């Protein structure tokens, strides 16, 4: 067989591999993500009408969206929606809830401690680590410079 360089092969691979449908993916992400945000806004108004102050109403919206997302994951529907929605379901708080519930379900076969307990953060762990680190750094800046 003739020798072929990695660069040459890389070009052949690129030509042979179908591209992801970026425009369609973006449009669906926009529509699904927008829909989730609209649901959040509707819930927020609803909670306000029920007598909650705006900060409390917003907190209740987060809790509601997490509950809905976790329930859809448990029913096995979330991944079927996310398959089409992509970043539309990944970016909002719903994605975070799904990233915790799905490993919890998956790894319960290894027991509650080393399975569910340890693996629950397998997907969302990095988000927590770097999210918390970033907030500490931000807090230090605010503290030192009194911004």
């Amino acid at each position, binding site marked *: *067989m003739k020798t072929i360089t990695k660069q040459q092969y890389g070009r052949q691979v690129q030509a042979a591999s179908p591209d992801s449908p970026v425009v369609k993916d973006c449009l669906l992400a926009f529509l699904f993500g927008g829909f989730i945000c609209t649901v959040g806004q509707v819930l927020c108004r609803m909670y306000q009408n029920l007598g909650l102050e705006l900060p409390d109403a917003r907190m209740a919206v987060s809790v509601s969206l997490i509950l809905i997302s976790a329930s859809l994951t448990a029913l096995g529907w979330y991944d079927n929606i996310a398959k089409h929605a992509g970043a539309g379901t990944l970016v909002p708080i719903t994605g975070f809830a799904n990233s915790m519930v799905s490993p919890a379900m998956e790894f319960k076969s290894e027991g509650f401690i080393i399975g569910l307990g340890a693996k629950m953060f397998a997907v969302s762990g990095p988000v927590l680590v770097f999210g918390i680190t970033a907030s500490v750094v931000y807090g230090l800046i605010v503290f030192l410079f009194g911004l």
Partner: protein
Amino acid sequence: MKRIGRGTVEFTAPPTVLGAGAVGGKKEGQGPLSAYFDQTFDDVSLGYTSWEKAEAQLQNEAVAVALDKAGCTADGVDMIFAGDLLNQCISSTFGLLEYEIPFLGQYGACSTMAQTLLMAAMAVDAGAAQRAVAVTSSHFCSAERQFRTPLEYGAQRTPTAQWTATAAGAVVLGTGGKIRVRRGLVGRIRELGIKDPSNMGAAMAPAAAQSILQFLEDTGSRPEDFDRIFTGDLGLVGTRLLYDLTEDNGVDLRPVHNDCGLMLYDREEQDVHAGGSGCGCSASVLCGHIFTQMEQKVLRNVLFCATGALMSTTSQQQGEPIPGICHVVQLTVE
């Protein structure tokens, strides 16, 4: 058994197929090859509490069918060569435990069916075993949780991604059967810098091209000499690349080639993107479709070239590229 050329082994008293079993899951049972499966399971848990146990049972069932067709019991088998995708090949060890057949575990990723078949053929030809079994399996759910993300995690698959088959295939080799294992080629590891685990076809195509070209050169044959050359599982992207690579060397495989990953599912209808993959894909296509067609003499001279991507989650996370392998087995029927 003798060596011909640079890498081919020719069997002097070709071992033959005494019986074969192909079992699959629900999706495989809905695919174009559904009629060739001995058994399919609509409940892919097979009634077990873990996917690993379900996969082990698939392998157990495939061996049971193969032994039944061969008309022998586990006691009559001298050696079993088995492997799968899971860490330390637990589907094989747990699935085959009850048979108490002398066991040699194998790892060849998705090339395992060709690897175990070659090992079994060499054992029978060398007289180390009168009857030997080759078996492998894969399960979509156990593979996903080991190699990718949890099943219910909302991720998107790329168009180049392949779908791990929930299936198993087993072959009993010995003397007196119709289908012969005539020659084989043990593949060399090839790596051309592919790092995308969602494009395994691209990672394995160079190994497939190299092994097939080597086999043709060693045996002085051309693609047209075979009724079919089956690769497994290059999928859509890997198949295109295999054609590119062999064409660059003046060999056109198109007229006689088919890929197990493209045969097992209806790619568009069953939403499997670039096609099927996993040890069970080429194993079940071989033990179901290919052997049946050979028994009916629709196919008489076939090359079975199973391909494997030899990476692990660790090598992947450490940014290493994906090495590929392809073993070739020539099967004939008089």
